[in-house]
């Protein structure tokens, strides 16, 4: 039987079967601690799964496999005190594992696959120009709650709560659906960023080989929000919406706006807040009509109904009524909904092949939460405040007792659900496609070389 010690753990994780010091063990304090991290990397981090993923089938025995593939991938470590180690590369799963265990990085980023081993880029640089350049990279998206600060009143900056998290749920739903239905991608991984946002990895071969220009085009396709600090009207829709926006509005935005954000964020509750909405209405008489009704609403209000919803119904109703009927006003209802719900992605992250992105299953150094995958089909159920933390996992390990003898340290902890999901819903189907692609491209090459031989 082995027991882990939470604090002051030495290099070998202080496994000490002889004298288990029970009382202090189940009592791992909350927070982030480099020693906890060492235990996490020692027992819990899913090296094998990350290696399998990043190999994309090239670790197999098929003659079409490219065994240099994994070794040309850039990893980047951020150590304590903000020391960056860029262009790390590994030739095998065990090399990756031992380096992470040794360096114990606070953050692991994943970069592109380059033409040559990134650790040896200087040697190649002497040989000539342009030898060292990225050749493959997942299409990635980074959505961060801070970009929504002007439309959430519950918290700001680094904080998130269950009242603003629906914004992330919306982003996942809108973008995931479009990536699959519009762009035809299948292998998409969503992950919690550890604090206040989500990351998306599109891993289809087609996605990995996109040029920067094509990545930029997809990011632009998703961009509706164009405002900045100096413009009130953040969203300007044309006369007719693109089918993608129509679908997003009908299937996601409208419902989430009315059922979650309107009451959750109390968007129309106070004068200050409803002014923000009224500013988006181009028709001055319509806006002042509403302002008048809302300002002296207090007396007549029906106590049972949420005032935000009541006011929104008034706005919608009035915009359709004969008095203010105009094409522009109907569109403005949609513009308000888009402004308060539509995903805001960090364009720069998606546009360039060589942008780094934090690896899933890292631990966020500020919150101690693990960057677990999110199931896009059930993303409403995801609760960022219930994600396993470093200390909660260590407590589970300690409680686990004999179970800790498993081959995988994470069995029996609350991380196992996440890793199982990663394996079965993402990794397995991905590797199946990779195998097929490797075989297909090998056969085509074989065919071609046969043809040329016959000459």
């Amino acid at each position, binding site marked *: 039987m082995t027991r882990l010690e939470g604090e002051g753990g030495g290099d070998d994780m202080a496994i000490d079967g002889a004298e288990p010091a029970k009382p202090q063990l189940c009592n791992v304090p909350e927070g982030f601690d480099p020693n906890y991290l060492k235990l996490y990397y020692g027992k819990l981090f899913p090296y094998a799964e990350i290696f399998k993923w990043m190999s994309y089938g090239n670790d197999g025995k098929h003659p079409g496999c490219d065994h240099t593939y994994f070794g040309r991938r850039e990893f980047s470590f951020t150590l304590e005190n903000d020391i960056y180690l860029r262009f790390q590369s590994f030739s095998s799963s065990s090399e990756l594992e031992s380096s992470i265990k040794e360096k114990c990085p606070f953050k692991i980023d994943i970069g592109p696959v380059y033409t040559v081993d990134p650790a040896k880029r200087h040697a190649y640089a002497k040989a000539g120009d342009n030898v060292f350049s990225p050749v493959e990279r997942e299409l990635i998206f980074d959505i961060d709650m801070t970009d929504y600060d002007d439309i959430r009143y519950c918290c700001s900056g680094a904080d998130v709560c269950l009242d603003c998290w629906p914004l992330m749920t919306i982003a996942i739903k809108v973008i995931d659906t479009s990536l699959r239905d519009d*762009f035809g991608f299948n292998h998409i991984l969503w992950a919690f960023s550890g604090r206040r946002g989500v990351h998306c990895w599109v891993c289809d071969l087609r996605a990995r080989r996109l040029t920067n220009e094509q990545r*930029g085009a997809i990011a632009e396709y998703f961009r509706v929000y164009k405002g*900045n*600090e100096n*413009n009130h009207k953040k969203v300007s829709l*044309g006369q007719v919406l693109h089918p993608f926006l129509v679908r997003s509005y009908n299937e996601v935005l409208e419902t989430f706006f009315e059922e979650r954000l309107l009451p959750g964020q109390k968007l129309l509750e106070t004068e200050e807040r409803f002014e923000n909405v009224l500013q988006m209405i181009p028709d001055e008489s319509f806006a002042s009509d509403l302002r008048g009704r809302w300002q002296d609403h207090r007396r007549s209000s029906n106590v049972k109904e949420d005032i935000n919803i009541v006011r929104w119904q008034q706005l919608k109703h009035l915009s359709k009524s004969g008095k203010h009927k105009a094409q522009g006003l109907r569109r403005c209802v949609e513009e308000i909904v888009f402004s308060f719900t539509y995903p805001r992605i960090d364009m720069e992250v998606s546009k360039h092949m060589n942008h780094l992105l934090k690896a899933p299953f890292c631990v966020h150094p500020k919150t101690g939460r693990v960057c677990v995958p999110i199931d896009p089909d059930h993303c409403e159920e995801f609760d960022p405040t219930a994600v396993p933390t470093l200390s909660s996992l260590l407590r589970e390990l300690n409680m686990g007792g004999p179970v800790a003898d498993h081959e995988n340290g994470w069995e029996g902890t609350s991380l196992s659900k996440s890793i199982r999901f990663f394996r079965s819903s993402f990794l397995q189907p991905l590797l199946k496609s990779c195998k097929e692609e490797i075989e297909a491209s090998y056969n085509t090459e074989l065919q071609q070389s046969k043809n040329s031989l016959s000459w």
Partner: protein
Amino acid sequence: MEVVPTHRKAAVPDATPALPLYRSAPQLEVRLEDFELFAIDRLRVLKGISDALSRGKRPDEMENLVSGLWKANMRHQDSSRVVEKDVISHFVLRLVYCRTEDLRKWFLSMETTLFRYRFRLLSASAQRVIMGELDLPYNSVISAEFENVKDKLNQVARSSVSAGPSLHTAETLFFKVPFEEVPELVAGRKVFIHKGFAYVAMHQVVSVVVTQFRSLLSKALVLTNRKWTSSIREQEQDRLTPIVEALSSSYIGPDYSQPEQFSEMSLREIDKVAASSFPLCMRHLFEKLREDHHLKHGGRMQLGLFLKGAGLKLDDALAFWKAELSRKVGAERFDKEYAYSIRHNYGKEGKRTDYTPYSCQKIILSTPGVGDHHGCPYRYFSDENLRAALGKMGVGSQIMEDVMDKVRNRHYQLACTLTFESIHGSSCDAGINHPNQYFKDSQKILQAKVIHSCSTQGIKCTIQADQRA
């Protein structure tokens, strides 16, 4: 390109296309003076396009402009040699503009624009011929499938304003194309996309063709560069090399990466200079920085490189940024997180490239998000905010309306030029193309005013005299 004649027989006697794809250099004899003259004529066209682009011309204006430029410069007295002139001039300039990344980028973008508008002017059948030459084996969408997506296609056609005059999707031919091949149509949501395929209407095909053309040319330029450095430059040392080198330097505007030799901006006068000579985009960043003691990354880059171009030395830049940012984040975090990127901009860290200040085009195209203050204010400010900012700069109400009119028509650089003229009380014929140009011209005028405050009286008199005459 071979300037030496060879005697290979041309395989295509009749069907020389009106719009060549410049796949391979022509095998023909070129007189040395034609070599240079043709190239200069084509450069006039490209330069005209470049100016028009930076002034934010709309596609329909561009179409007229390109066709006019082409007619004015690319004729040949012997009409049978018009195509020859087209091809030769292209290949000469390819040699001229293959030699650095910046030159390649400029040439690629101008040639692609030229190609785009020439293609648009072709007849439908001529366009099909070019599609065939580019191996674009697109099948048109068959009617059974068309019925399924008809509504969506209609929706897209109506949603994009610039879709062209004919919106009757029923009569339009559609092609099913992998979305990767039409990035601009995807970016503008100008096509319906389903399961990885974009449904491209015949009149949008120009986008596909242009993308193909661009990628062919881009690859070719890299190859030409290799050939140039490995052999041609040496071989042609006495003959072509001097012509080639002279041609490129004469036509690209300054990039303002090196501050003017004698201009130097000191920290003491920076506030005064900011108020008098910064364009609005930089003034706004500067004021926000003074106010909030913080700017997000895009803003720090835009302002930082501008200041560098305006002559702020590295040490002063570090002191300037530290004075502001450290009030928000503390001196320690400044040294750790921000100082590096400032030294980086000055080419002292990382790749050690001396970074170039952003041009208007780059700033106009940037995409500021929440909390950002960079980008072109004429484009991103609301009507109200822009009026307030211009008022503060001293733009009178009469000119203000002209500026706002330019903004409404998306002529952001013209709006900035008008602002410049209004504030400085002097004309700016070249137009504003670069914030550092704005700065330099402004300084020039202000200094002249100080020195020659008496002699301006004289100039006014002559102008009045001219007007009377």
